[in-house]
């Protein structure tokens, strides 16, 4: 009898608790799947890689001896590691800079009233949808030394057969064009999306003031889409630092590599950092060394992305 009035507040209290629980906890439950997956496939491997990098650890043996920072010491003295770092930066700059300039220009062109707009926008994305394997195989044929189309066209101008894959600079140019082919349109679309948010009135006013098309791009568009530019620069930088499929497949399909394709040519002329990691880990099975290289590569990505952030932040924002 007396239990009834007692039970009501109890239930209410319980419902209240459930409510607070719902409000406080369930958001975490909603984001949990991502973080659980991230922990399993992102964070844990990251930490585990650091652990492995402190060992002499090869797939061919079950014994893993702790060697401290030895792998890092060897790595910093390894000319091939620095060579890979140089190649990565060189290919990164050669591919990213022209790519972003081209992407802004393309987006600017598409931002005006054009016929068949959707068609153009969709076709921008097509190279990105193509499989990287197909792209590299076809470009490798275009860049072929004996029967490649590019050398054939160049021969009209009296240029002798260039062995694209053999040279350092030439192979970097070849790889950069493959990367640009795949990513320019994608970045152009991101820029285009940002440009559409720029108020039309600004352009109208500028046109009345007699500003040319290029001035409008420089003085209105670029400052107004600055946050997007920062985003794209950082994402492209990270992407460029991790290039592996292109050089690996380029080596295999041009036959410039005598033995393994993982070394980026006999002189390692186009071995990138990621490919260096792959070579150490998956062709030599030296996981300790490969893990150390991955960690240094990770740090390098952070540093380079940070520098790019600082530079792009200085691009003037807003309108003066």
């Amino acid at each position, binding site marked *: 009898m007396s239990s009834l009035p007692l039970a009501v507040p109890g239930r209410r209290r319980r419902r209240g608790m459930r409510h607070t629980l719902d409000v406080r906890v369930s958001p975490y439950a909603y984001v949990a799947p991502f973080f659980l997956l991230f922990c399993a496939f992102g964070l844990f*491997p990251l930490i585990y890689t650091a652990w492995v990098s402190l060992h002499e650890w090869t797939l061919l043996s079950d014994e893993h001896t702790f060697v401290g920072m030895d792998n890092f010491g060897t790595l910093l003295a390894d000319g091939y590691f620095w060579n890979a770092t140089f190649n990565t930066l060189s290919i990164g700059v050669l591919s990213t800079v022209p790519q972003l300039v081209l992407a802004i220009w393309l987006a600017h062109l598409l931002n005006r009233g054009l016929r068949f707009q959707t068609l153009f926008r969709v076709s921008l994305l097509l190279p990105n949808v193509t499989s990287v394997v197909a792209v590299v195989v076809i470009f490798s044929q275009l860049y072929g030394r004996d029967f490649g189309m590019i050398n054939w066209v160049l021969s009209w101008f009296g240029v002798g057969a260039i062995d694209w894959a053999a040279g350092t600079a030439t192979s970097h140019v070849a790889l950069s064009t493959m990367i640009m082919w795949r990513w320019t349109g994608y970045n152009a679309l991101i820029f285009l999306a940002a440009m559409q948010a720029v108020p039309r009135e600004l352009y109208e006013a500028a046109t009345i003031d007699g500003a040319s098309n290029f001035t409008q791009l420089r003085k209105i568009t670029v400052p107004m889409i600055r946050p997007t530019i920062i985003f794209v620069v950082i994402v492209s930088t990270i992407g460029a630092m*991790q290039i592996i499929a292109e050089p690996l497949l380029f080596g295999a399909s041009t036959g410039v590599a005598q033995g393994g394709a993982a070394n980026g040519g006999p002189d390692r002329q186009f071995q990138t950092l990621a490919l260096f990691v792959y070579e150490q880990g998956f062709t030599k099975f030296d996981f300790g060394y490969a893990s150390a290289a991955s960690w240094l590569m990770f740090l390098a990505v952070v540093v380079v992305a940070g520098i790019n952030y600082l530079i792009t932040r200085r691009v003037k924002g807003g309108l003066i």
Partner: protein
Amino acid sequence: MTPRIRRLAVPLLTASLLALGSAACGGGGGSDTVGTASKPEEKVKLTIGLFGDFGFKPLYEEYKKTHPNVEIVENVTQFNDHHNNLVKRLATNAGAGDVEAVEVGYISTFTAQPAKFQDLKQYGLDKRQSDYLDWKWQQGLSKQGGELLGLGTDVGGLAMCYRKDLFEKAGLPTDRTEVAALWPTWEQYIETGKKFAAADVAGAKFVDSPGEIFRAMVNQAPTGLYDAQDQIIVDSNPDVKKAWDLSNQLTSEKLTAKLAAFSPPWNTGFAKGSFATIICPAWMTGFIQEQAKDSSGKWDIATVPGGSGNSGGSHLMIPKQSKHPKEAAELIDFLTSKENQAKVFKEEGTFPSIPSLYDDPSIQNFTKPFFGDAPIGKIYSEAAKALKPQHLGPKEAEVRVVIGDGLGRVEQGKQTPDQAWAQVLEDVKKIK
């Protein structure tokens, strides 16, 4: 570290490296074997991992007639990938096939890990010992010699293939005995190359690339890249240095087409007739036939300079993780049987490792129209009989890659032979 953690750790580590390195080259599919121990009438699916075409396909059909319950799935991957993947799959205890082919360049890597493979003696395959060339049999034994881990498929006795039409254009003899007489030694082979180059045949060089020639020359020596104690002796073995110098002479005399073996441009080179000679271990004849389909009758085969040697050849092994080792062992026994090795040779060119076949009239008299009816059975029998086996070390393939790269740097004009050699020796030292 406990085995369980390790089993978890290695795939996760793999995932992490791939994640950091933007995940380009994953391994292929694994085996889909049924999990239970099988009774004879039960359906059994056997996966067999190969690199390139072994010519086994017709044999599978034949095998199914007597073993209707067995389904055979063949996974073919590229040479380096195949062996690298096998190492990974053994280490992670997952994904390897029931039967895996291993080339001689890698055989010592795997026979050093007997715990990862089934001992074929358990399945009575040691009865096959009397069939085999003794050295081929020895290569399939574990390092300590206790276990039988692999059964040989073919041996790669050496010969030299050449294009008759290109030789004719260059004013060289085309008959195979006359051609063989041109080059008893490698020095004379290079001299012949100079004559070929002097004739300036449009679009054709004398040889594809120095890499495979180097390998052949080293294989002809009594000892190669390793000594009997498994020490790398690249820096001290005069035969290796001699092979290096001669290979680079091919480059300096501009006799090579700069086409690395097994690359797409090399394949195109076959079709376009970009090179007049190519080193021809028995299995290469199959490749040529496949790549140069239009040039039937233009190729011929002569003896190799510098005496006989072995280049290539494989073994079939059963990883410990196979769910059907008994059935896999039966399949290996079938695929490597005397009759079937003879059949595969006639189709695919890979030469048997069973010496009693060498004097068999059906092999001795075997000719191939593609090679201008050259008596390839006789040529390769002689080569295999004269062959002196060489000890191969555990990182044979890795050492070969390092030297191949050195030859490549010289060929591409990036270094002088001496600079390249110095770098090769440095790189070889790093091999663990």
